[in-house]
C-alpha cells in the first residue's frame, strides 16, 4: 500500500546534490511529487536562495545536506583561526543563512520544513565538524521557539556511516560490523535511502508536531541513551 505523505506539489531546495545523501533525498522527494531544486553548496547562500526561488517559485522545504560530502578532519589544537572560520562557515553558517533567508516566505505561507543533515555528537578526534554539529543542534532548537507557531518545523538528522559517502571510505566495514557486539549494531553501513526515508517523513504534514529533534539514523551507532 503506497503511503500518501501529502507532499505533492511542494517545492524543496536540497543542498549537497553532489553527495549520495543529497541525491537520495532529492530522488525520494521527487518520488513523492515534490518539485526539487538540487544545488551545489559551494555557490554561497545568496546565489543558492536565488537559484531555488527562481526554479521553484516558492521554497516550502529546505534540506541542508551538504555537510555529508565532508568527513571530520583531524586537526591540531593549534588550528589556525582562518581554517577554523572557513570550516564553521561551511558547516554551520551556510545552513543557518539559507534558513534565515527562506524563513520569511515560509512564515507568510504558514508552512515550512527545514531538515539539517548534521554530523555526530560523539567526537573521537578533535575536529571543527563536531563544533559545527553542536552549533546546528542548539541553533535549530532555539530557532524553533521563534518559528514553531507558523506551521514550520526544524529538525536535525544525524546519519551514521552511510555507504558511498566520503566518510565511509575511511572505514573498513568488516571492522565495524564483524564482532559479536559490532560498532554498528545493525551490522552494515547504512544506505543513503535510509536517510531519505526519514527526511520524507519529517517533511510530511503528518509530522507537524515533531520539531527541534535530533534523529539518529545510524543503525544504533551512537552510544548515548538520552
Amino acid at each position, binding site marked *: 500500500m503506497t503511503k500518501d505523505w501529502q507532499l505533492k506539489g511542494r517545492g524543496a531546495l536540497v543542498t549537497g546534490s553532489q553527495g549520495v545523501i543529497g541525491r537520495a533525498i532529492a530522488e525520494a522527494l521527487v*518520488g513523492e511529487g515534490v518539485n526539487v531544486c538540487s544545488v551545489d553548496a559551494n555557490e554561497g547562500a545568496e546565489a543558492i536562495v536565488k537559484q531555488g526561488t527562481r526554479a521553484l517559485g516558492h521554497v516550502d522545504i529546505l534540506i541542508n545536506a551538504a555537510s555529508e560530502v565532508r568527513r571530520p578532519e583531524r586537526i591540531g589544537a593549534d588550528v589556525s583561526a582562518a581554517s577554523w572560520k572557513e570550516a564553521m562557515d561551511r558547516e554551520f553558517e551556510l545552513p543557518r543563512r539559507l534558513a534565515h533567508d527562506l524563513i520569511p516566505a515560509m512564515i507568510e505561507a504558514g508552512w515550512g520544513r527545514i531538515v539539517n543533515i548534521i554530523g555526530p555528537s560523539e567526537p573521537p578526534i578533535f575536529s571543527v565538524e563536531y563544533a559545527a554539529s553542536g552549533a546546528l*543542534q542548539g541553533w535549530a532548537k532555539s530557532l524553533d521557539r521563534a518559528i514553531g507557531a507558523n506551521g514550520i518545523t526544524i529538525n536535525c538528522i544525524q546519519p551514521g556511516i552511510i555507504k558511498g559517502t566520503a566518510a565511509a571510505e575511511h572505514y573498513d566495514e568488516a571492522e565495524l560490523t564483524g564482532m559479536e557486539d559490532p560498532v554498528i*549494531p*545493525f*551490522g552494515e553501513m547504512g544506505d543513503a535511502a535510509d536517510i531519505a*526515508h526519514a527526511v520524507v517523513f519529517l517533511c510530511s504534514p503528518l509530522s507537524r*508536531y515533531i520539531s527541534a529533534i535530533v534523529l539518529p539514523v545510524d543503525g544504533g551507532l551512537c552510544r548515548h*541513551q538520552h
Partner: protein
Amino acid sequence: MAMDLELEGRTALVTGASRGIGRGAALALAAEGVKVAVGARRRELLEELADEIVAAGGKRPAIIVTPDLAVAGGGAYKVKDEALAALGHIDILVNSAGRSQNPDYPGRMPYDAPDTAWDQEMQLNYVTIRQLTLALIPGMIERKYGRIINISGKTEPWQLHTANPPKAAVHGFSKGLSRQVAKHGVTVNSIPPGKIISEQILRNYSEQQRKETSKWIPSGGFGDPSDIANLVVFLASPLARYITGAVIPVDSGFRRYAY
C-alpha cells in the same frame, strides 16, 4: 517512486489501547493493513475501537482485556500469551500502557509516600514494558523482523515525580537492547510524547492550565494522538530499519534540552 510502508499483513500488539495515544496507534496501524491486538482494562472501549477500525476498512482487532498492569504478578505474560494465541506471532509491539501520575498522588510526591506508590508506577511504566518486550523478542529474532516502540516520557524532571525514574529506565533498557538485537532486524525506539490531548491530559490539566502550558509549546497548542501514531507507523515500517536505540520526542519542541 512513492514509498510503500510494507506493513500490510504484519501483526501488532498495542497496550493501553482503550484511549489516547495507544488508541491512536492502533487505529493508524490498522489503517495500514496491520492485524492488531489491542489491550486495555476496559472491554467496552476496546469493542468501540474494534468497531471503528472495521468501519474504516481495517481487520477486526483481537481484544485483550488486561489486568491492572500497575500491580505486580505476571500480567504482562498473560497479555503476551493472549496476543500470541490471537495473532500467531507479533511483528510490532507498541508499549503504550502507562501514565505520568499515580492517581492517588497527583502532582509532586510527598517524601513520606509509601513504597507501594512508587512500586506501582515502576511496575506499570517500566517492568511491564521490559517483561512484554523480552517475552516477544525471541520470536522477532527468529522471524528476522521486529519493532519495539515504547511510549515513554520526557527526561526533564521538574519536581519529584513517580513517572521520571521508570521512563528513564525505559530509555536505558531500550538503548542496551537495541544494540544487541539490531543485527537481527529488530529495532527498539522510544517516543516521549509532549502534551497530547488524551483522557489523562484532560484529567490532569484544567482548561486554564492547558492554556498556560500552551504558551511554552512552540506551535502554541497541544497535539493529537494521531501525531504520535504517524511516527509509530513510520517506525514500524521496514523503511525505518536503520533507526534504532533512538529517543524521538513528539512534542512540538516543548522540551528544552537541545540534543
